[in-house]
């Protein structure tokens, strides 16, 4: 088992009232799964993804990741944990504009303090694998949306994460680019990477092995 959410609640206080963003979420994810989180706008999809990615906290409940109790961990250890095991892919790519493709890929490795030679090898490997060797010295602004997202996925993968969290990875892409990215995810999944994606599209959700439906912060 990769991770387990038990009775997760998350709320904000607004005008004296407690508004629930997540309400009693129970979720178990096994290694090798490909889960799609679906639901209307404001149902808490992204919040759930952020909680799983440890970017955001929660107010009540338990979260176990690889036998570690995330809810008890200090910020530093938590960040070590997600640095080690989780890769993120965003709708708007979030590449660092002032870094080249190659440097963008290198960034997570720098933060993980990977040695220079090894780092170079890993970056070259990843460029090769995604067929973007020719674009390694370009800046994000010089790439198309699909290519940028490709780099985004490559960057998420470079540190060999167990889990990839993707928040509407194809939201800004046209249908052909979307399909390419989803195919890539599917292929990664068969290679053993666990993937959790947030999506609006039934078609994209179909790539996954399981669908989690959310409405007003609750799983249905």
């Amino acid at each position: 088992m990769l991770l387990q959410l038990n009775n997760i609640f998350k709320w904000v206080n607004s005008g004296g009232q407690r508004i629930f963003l997540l309400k009693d979420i129970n979720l178990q994810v096994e290694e090798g799964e490909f889960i799609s989180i679906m639901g209307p706008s404001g149902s808490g999809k992204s919040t759930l993804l952020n909680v799983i990615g440890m970017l955001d906290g929660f107010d009540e409940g338990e979260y176990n990741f690889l036998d570690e109790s995330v809810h008890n961990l200090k910020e530093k250890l938590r960040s070590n944990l997600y640095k080690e095991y989780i890769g993120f892919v965003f709708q708007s790519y979030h590449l660092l504009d002032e870094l080249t493709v190659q440097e963008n890929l290198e960034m997570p490795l720098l933060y993980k303090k990977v040695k220079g030679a090894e780092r170079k090898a890993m970056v070259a490997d990843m460029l090769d694998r995604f067929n973007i060797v020719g674009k390694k010295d370009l800046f994000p602004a010089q790439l198309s949306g699909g290519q940028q997202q490709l780099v985004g996925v490559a960057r998420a993968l470079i540190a060999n994460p167990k889990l990839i969290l993707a928040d509407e990875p194809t939201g800004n892409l046209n249908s052909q680019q979307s399909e390419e990215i989803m195919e890539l995810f599917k292929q990664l999944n068969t290679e053993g990477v666990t993937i959790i994606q947030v999506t609006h599209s039934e078609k994209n959700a179909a790539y996954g092995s399981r669908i989690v439906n959310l409405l007003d912060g609750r799983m249905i």
Partner: protein
Amino acid sequence: MLKNYFKIAWRNLWKNRLFTTINIVGLSVAFGVAILLSMDSLHELSYDKFHANGDSLYKTFITWQTPKGTEVGTSQPTPFANALQSEVPGIEKITRYLETDALVSYNEKEINLDAVWVDADFFSMFTFPIAQGDKKNPLKDLSSIVVTETTANKLFGEKNPIGKTVTILVNGKQEPFTISGIAADSPKENSLEFEIALRFEKNAEYEETKERWGAQYHEVYVQLQNGVLATDFEKSSRAFTNLHYKEASERLKRDGALPNVSGNFLQLGLLSITDVNFTSFTKGYAEISRGATYLVLGVAFLILFIACVNFINMSIARSSQRLREIGMRKTLGAEKQQLFFQFWSESLFVFLVSVGLGILLSVVLLNDFQTLFRTSASFEILISPKIILISTVLILFITLFVGGYPALLLSRLGTIQSLKGKLETSGKNRVRDALIVVQFSIAILLISGTLVLWEQVEYMQNKDLGYDKEQVLSFPLDGKRNSYAAIRLLRNELAGNPNILGVTASDNNLGRGKDGSQYTSVWGFEYKGKTVKTNSLVVDYDYIKTLGLELVQGRSFDNNRENDSQVVIINESMARELGEDNPLEAQLPVGDSLGSPIIGVVKDYNFQDISKAIEPLTFFLDRESSLNYAYVKVTPVNMSNSFDVIEAAYKKIEPNTAFLGSFLDENVDRTFRREKTMATLITSGSVIAIILSCIGLFAMSLLIVAQRTKEIGIRKVIGASVISITYILTKDFLKLVVVAFLIATPIAWWFAKDWLQNYAYHIDLSWSLFTLSGLLAVAIAVLTISTKTIKAAIANPLNSLRDE
């Protein structure tokens, strides 16, 4: 990783070229200015610190309790030093010190040198090392003299001067002296400057005043024995003053003076040599104030502070653009420290470049700085291990703090908020607002300071001093000839020239001439049961007419009356001091004579610096004492031509002496040179402060606009006009300027009032002046901010409302 930091830093800085340039320009200017200003103030502060015995060296002064309050004098009578050394315990060494000009001739050469007349101990007390000659006691013999290296070069060229004989004009006679030592040129930070040192016993007044306690004309320096405190010495000297100044004490008591806390009317005081340069006696006590120097240092730090505030505000302003990057980096696994170091390395980069450029700037501007502010400060003063260490630490500290603060703020942001591009605005605004208020307070403070200073300088320049300063020029009569002969020859030379309206002379100059000297001669006497003190001035015929003084009573000295050398003329202050109904019937007890009748009263005029109130003054036509300055009145046409004519005439009379003539208005200007320098300094400081503050404001307007883009968009969509939006954006920040105005004005008022107390004649502080500086600050601020706010206000709201 480090390489990566710098790479990213460089790219980020390059991407934001405008900001980087603004920051670097601002910081470089601030660093450059700070280097120059602190150099200047360190130069001032290190005055007289080079003496090895510095801790035990003191200048003596005496505080008198007079009926009008306390008075302080540093002048002592000739027998004072010897008596003090033998009667009061604790003195290691003592020297009298008299500074005059001396006309020195060697072969055909004749040079006027800045001379000090001192006792033999002088060179063992003070650190003026003897480079050649008798190193231990160069002034052993009465006829031995010491010259500085520069002076030796002037007099003798390359030849070895030791043992050479020169003649010096003393009391109108040529006396031979032997060079027994060459002193190394002293450091610039020296208030005991001299070109030639002679034995005190040789000075012109010595023989006449050997036994006289009433003739005070020179200073006395002492070196206390090890372990003797100045305060103890002052206490134990009371018996000495009571003995030797008994009569004076009694007179003061009789005239109604109140004794001081220890019950005495006179008190000897010691002033540490390192304080001498910073001491003023004008208020009736020894006031040691390094304020002006610290003010300069303060301005340096204020400017640096403003530039640093800019940097902080601009970094924060830019952070809203970098939120996504921060969030992204955090999701990629960046820790707080790593983010901190990344942002800090950017700051470090900017600071290093700025410090480098600042140093370069200060080197380039050094010469202009020295001329503009009349300082001889140079980089030598900064090149000491201590200073370098302190400034390195200071710069590191500034970099750490100024660069670190925004870095810390940025690295602490929450991941999700920053990914969404939302800035948490609570709390942080308070820091920013406070910084801007301080920044503007400084600017307003400096603007007000500038206005007050210039108004006072203007006032002093334009004040009617009571004499004709535009058309009269004066020059020192320091040649070989007897001054009366010289002035007679000058009259003959200039006679018949239609442009010359009058020639006269006196023993003192008005204002400060090109020779740079100024002195006061005070005469005290008993008059109808009380002590009267008056300034005395020996004049030649036509003095009152030539200088355009106004006679309110009686007549002027008359060439045709034989007895006029026995009579005196006084000014109105003196008339008041005497308290006579008709001063023309009074007589003054001059010398041994039965009394000198007063023949005239002139209207009060500012014969001393404008900072001083007009004191009593008595004119003598004393043909026994020499005249030191000639005055020539010219017609207002062709003045430079007349100047040349006078110079030529004087050259003919004294071919070996330099002609140091200047018009009296220039002389007067020279007396407040210090104020002018300070005004220039504060003005430059405030201009720089204002420019830097505006840069900061510009950054702030960017911040406001960036934070409120969405709000602006929404307001426009629902129908707000450009003007109303500009108003909303400007309002918040105008509040800050108003707060700054409220804070700065009382401080500026207080400082200005305090400063103006130093001037007997000064401007009245008016609210309009402070209002003006406030309005000026507001106007500059609004102008700066409006470019950005108006642009934001007229922008298409669609752009600001589009998400993602």
